[in-house]
């Protein structure tokens, strides 16, 4: 009785879109443990009670990618893509740093909140520009967002006057570097936002409609869905989430580096979405999948550093891991494996069929 039940839980897990992402994270951590058995150790800093360890670092690093990855999930689900998120992170950081530097009050919570609010407003507006270009002007999403990807860093440069502006604000810094009951604030915040966005998307009909548009835009329109507003919403959300990622990313160093902040992170976000099991052709999406994808990318980055892979070989290492995951997820590769298994050992398959019939 309990054995089939356990088996069915296992099978459910295997069919989750992010299953192979989790397997990869575990494998990478195991690799690290082989090199250093204490890799997973988490200790408590006696001075302030915060948790310290490699795992904690990974969670912190993953937070900004999680933000842009869930925005990217929604946009990709509509059948589009948002290449501008990395640049929008720089814009968000630039707005924050300039505002904080001008305000000069490093301890005021109000100033820090205003800086965050203004950053999100600006990136939201820029997201809306993407949305209008795609939904109302009818540009291809790749081109529409490429414009802002290239122009975004210019906008950031104009805002800071070409400087890499630094500022100080304790509450703002706390977002990126602070701890709450021993856990990094930035990770708590990221999880919270992922949960809220997932809740809104799945509890309302937003998710269903976005998927419908992504799968078959013509049929969706014929079913009475108004695609323009939904597309606009997706790009605005993506912009705002990129803004949050920007705040998280500049907050840890309190300096915006126009050319480095969020540089090429749009590609990490796209990878996270793909690792999460979504198709770039649009349609079905999984925010939990993108969440796992972002975690994997952070783990991968950290592992590459830790194993001392030479910096010139880093991209290749990353690529190999990602290709392996995509292959494992691929329907065709899986059915090929299944066919092989079936021809080699026909007996177990019969059992599976029986179990399915029972379930």
């Amino acid at each position: 009785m309990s054995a089939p039940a356990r088996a069915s839980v296992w099978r459910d897990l295997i069919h989750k879109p992010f299953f192979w992402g989790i397997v990869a994270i575990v494998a990478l951590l195991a690799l690290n443990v082989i090199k250093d058995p204490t890799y997973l150790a988490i200790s408590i800093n006696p001075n302030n009670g915060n948790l310290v360890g490699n795992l904690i670092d990974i969670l912190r690093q993953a937070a900004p990618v999680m933000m842009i990855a869930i925005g990217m999930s929604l946009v990709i689900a509509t059948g589009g893509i948002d290449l501008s998120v990395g640049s929008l992170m720089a814009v968000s950081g630039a707005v924050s740093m300039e505002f904080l530097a001008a305000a000069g009050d490093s301890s005021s919570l109000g100033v820090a909140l205003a800086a965050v609010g203004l950053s999100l407003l600006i990136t939201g507006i820029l997201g809306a520009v993407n949305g209008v270009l795609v939904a109302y002007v009818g540009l291809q999403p790749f081109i529409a967002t490429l414009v802002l990807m290239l122009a975004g860093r210019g906008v950031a440069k104009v805002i800071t006057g070409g400087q890499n502006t630094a500022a100080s604000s304790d509450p703002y810094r706390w977002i990126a570097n602070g701890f709450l009951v021993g856990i990094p604030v930035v990770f708590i915040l990221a999880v919270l936002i992922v949960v809220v966005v997932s809740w809104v998307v799945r509890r309302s009909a937003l998710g269903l409609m976005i998927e419908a548009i992504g799968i078959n835009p013509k049929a969706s329109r014929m079913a009475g869905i108004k695609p323009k507003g939904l597309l606009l919403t997706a790009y605005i959300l993506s912009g705002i989430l990129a803004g949050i990622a920007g705040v998280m990313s500049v907050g840890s160093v309190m300096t915006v580096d126009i050319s480095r902040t969020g540089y090429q992170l749009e590609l990490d976000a796209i990878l996270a979405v793909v690792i999460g099991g979504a198709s770039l052709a649009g349609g079905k999406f999984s925010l939990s999948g993108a969440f796992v994808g972002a975690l994997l990318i952070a783990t991968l980055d950290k592992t590459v550093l830790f194993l001392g892979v030479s910096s010139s070989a880093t991209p290749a290492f990353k690529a190999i891991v990602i290709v392996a995951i995509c292959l494992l997820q691929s329907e065709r590769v899986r059915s090929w494996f299944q066919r092989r298994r079936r021809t080699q050992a026909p007996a177990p398959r019969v059992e599976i069929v029986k179990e399915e019939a029972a379930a």
Partner: protein
Amino acid sequence: MNEELPIVEMRGITIEFPGVKALDGVDFRLFQGEVHALMGENGAGKSTLIKALTGVYRIDSGSIVVAGQERSFAGTGDAQTAGISTVYQEVNLAPNLSIGENVMLGHEIRGPFGVNWRATHRAATEALARLGLDYLDTHKPLSTLSIAMQQLVAISRAMAIKAKVLILDEPTSSLDAAEVEGLFAVMRTLRDQGVAILFVSHFLDQIYAISDRLTVLRNGRYEGEYLTRDLDRHALISKMIGKDLDALKSLGGNRRTTPRDSDEAAFLSASGISRTGAVDATDLDIRPGEVVGFAGLLGSGRTELARLLYGADRTESGQITVKGRKVDLTSPAAALSHRIAFSTENRRDEGIIGDLTIRENMILAVQAKRGWARPMPRKEQDAIVDKYIAALNVRPADPERMIKNLSGGNQQKVLLGRWLATEPELLILDEPTRGIDVGAKAEIQEAVAELADQGVAVVFVSSELEEVVRLSERIVVLKDHSKIGEIQNGPDVTAQEIVDVIAAHGVEAAAETLEEEVSVVADVTVNTDAPASETLEEEIR
């Protein structure tokens, strides 16, 4: 013919998908120089059998013998090498390439310096000539041809690889009567050249017109093989659906045939609506509880007019009023809010959302009406879905099944459920029974009749005139993008009468234009000298 060995012999073919046996021990044989029809309802296993023969699916058990040699196809390439060629329902050609390139694609004739285009085009012309199409210029882009001609090019392409077996999977579903006749002529030519043709069509008339022999499948099992001339329609349908036809015959007998009061308030009335290249200015009234049929040939504007009523395409002039109020139907969403629903003829591209489930597809329109911020509670969803799955007899009755895995008829029923769930006051059905089997057809027709009884206005667009006549109370006849007449249905109205109206209109119209020309000429002659007018008038005579 029977004495020879069959060119294709399939024995005991079984194909299993997870949870279902799509084919269960099916036998099938095909002889050279015959047209063999494969018959069965949707989901009977016709497509699966064809895919087994063309190497798309692997068979789990059974044997396939082609030309005396046992084969095991690992892909469509293997099947083609064995001389089996397929032309699918939708034309799978590249419209931007030339006709010749399409015919020879993948089989171009190569010389020492790459493709020898001159020889390739010559070979294409030869392939076309086998079908009597050698008048086509192989250098012209394929897109300059009509769909029907493209279909013939697709067949030439199939024959270019010297196929011994040609599979035609519903080649006629988007052709009009004359085009079908053209296709049949080509099929007869090929048959007489010794090609074995496997033909699938839902039109029984066509089966009897072209096929020599037929094999019937039902629920993935082999029902039997018959000579077409030995099996009458009644018996054939009974074998396909496994029950008697009488149940279907009683249908539609209760349509209303007495003319209505002409001043009965219309639900929707259109005056002078038009769209360039689609519909010329048209007036139309549709009253509650009325089934209005749109009859006309392909391209007559019947679909285009229906789309204007739903806001799928915008009207460029004219006015539509709903319940006496002027409305602006700028989008399907706007039409839905006025309780107008439209089921498209293009189920795959404009109807189903393939990767969503039956449930999601069914509630989509209702949800779209509510807006994304007001999601439908799951209980309400389940209530709607259960209701229409039961009412329309959707199979499989599993709401969480992806709609793309359903047969065409069942997809159509799910879509019908989607529109009924919006509780429309006007339901426009464009070819709701195209490409679906007799049983599902009857169920959909029954649903239409019931709706009208409940006071829903229905517009029924179909290329099958018999069906229009059987169901409609009033028939709007269209030709060349405009409405040419309305026929009040009655016991003595037949499909032939509609055909006559369409044909007669053509003659009248031609006469009219001629008269117009004459009058123009007459006007001109007032201002010019007389001898010229005489010669002109003589020319016209």
